[in-house]
């Protein structure tokens, strides 16, 4: 009884730790306040790990921004 309970508690805690660690590792910064290097995502074609971080296309802030507000006098 004690043995089985120990196995169940220990293994469930292990699975929880791995799940949480994988989740948190993607969210939290890795070193100090530096943002994490981009990781592979489902929408991108896979490249091997040794190819280095996946290139993230630069966002043109001005082009993406909504048009500046101007008063509609009419």
């Amino acid at each position, binding site marked *: 009884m*004690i*043995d*089985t309970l*120990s*196995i*169940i*508690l*220990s*293994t469930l*805690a*292990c*699975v929880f*730790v*791995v*799940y*949480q*660690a*994988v989740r*948190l*590792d993607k969210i*939290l910064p*890795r*070193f*100090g*306040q*530096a*943002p*994490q*290097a981009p*990781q*592979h995502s489902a929408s991108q074609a896979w490249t*091997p*790990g*040794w*190819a*280095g*971080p*996946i290139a993230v296309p630069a966002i043109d802030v001005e082009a993406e921004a909504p048009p500046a507000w101007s008063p509609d006098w009419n």
Partner: protein
Amino acid sequence: MLRSLYLVAIYLSFFVLGRSAPFAVALGYVWVDTFNPQSMAYLVLPQIPVSLIMAVATIASYVLFERQKPRITLTSILLLLFAVWVTMTTALWAEVPDSAWEKWNFAFKMLCFAAFLPLVFRSRIQIEALLQIYLLSISVHFIPVGLKTMVSGGGYGRALGIVAGNSLLAEGATLAGVSLMLIPIILYLRRNTLIMPKHWAVKLAYSGLVSLALAAAIGTYERTALVGMAIVGGGVWLRARRKILYGALGVLTILAVASRTSEAWDARISTIRHYETESSALGRLLVWQWTIGYVNEHPLGGGFNSYKIDRISFPPDTPGGDPVVVNGVAFHSIYFEVLGEQGYVGLGIFFTIIFFSFWQLHRVARLTRNVKEMAWAKELAYALQVALLTLLACGAFIGIAFQPMLYYLFALAACLRAHVREVQRLGYMPAGARREAAQERCSFPRNERLSQSVALLKR
């Protein structure tokens, strides 16, 4: 049947959860290595090479998915050097070649894996996950012993653990040493965990684990436990902020243990005083004497399990009787085990790894002592120092020089030092006396510093 299927499901879950995160698969290997599911299941797992599959998956996952530049640590180099040396002693001059190759088989893999760990565990979350999995995997061995000791008392040589036999964590002295070694790590996790929810129940569970670890150590009736308790108690007390409170708690614990333990425990522990006549203690002293004589003739050691050639002559039981000669008395000490098996060169490498691990932890504690954001690293460095010291003190009386426990601590020290070095390199941790110098170095504007950091991480 049900237990076997359940353990297979847990085993497979590591592959699923770690499908694109190499460290998660590596956690699976640590789990297999420490928890030993193949020894608890009756079907499937005992029939397949669970460790080999997990090791191949870990390396494959690292090669395919890890996107950061590999980071070579001196600990890894020393561990690999040790792996090369043990291979040489086994292949070239082992006294008992067949037995030596058997031990080499797991010792070599264990050394290589310990050298590999700093490549995978790099961030705070990853290092904590390694600590948590290691603790939880071992807890399955000490929780039942601790609970049974609390309910019905322990006993010397009694099989209270989950795995039968007299090897690894089923052996009383090893279990006592490892349980005590975990106490500072549990206390660290209790205060600093990011993975477990911040809830009073979690803190209570960690406190419960400390009590169970202590109970398990006492329940083994091993004299090694007394040594371990003294080291871990002193270490935790020295690092505690409220020394008077913890000192009083320590005294109360000693009084409670002294009053609650049975006469059998007292009788067993008091044999320490009669080491010259007690056969187990005397056997150790005689085999250590033999080892020193052996390596003086064979400075390069006799390869793994070279103790099998010893002939230890015990004093006669009755005055005037014949001495009792016993063949193949084990070393019962990590230091004499390494000395007798790997010679002075092996012992030199072993001590260098130990010294370097302490040095790394000392550096981490020193560099992070005035940095609020890195207070966790300082606490972890202290916890690992006490854990290492406890295991090294207990190891003086147990032959676990080539068991994974010590090497996980070496690897953890290397992971932590490398993480702090990375944070320093990125300019986020000007520490202590070097604060001004570091600030001067990183005096460029903050957003520029961030973009430099991203560029460094991408490399």
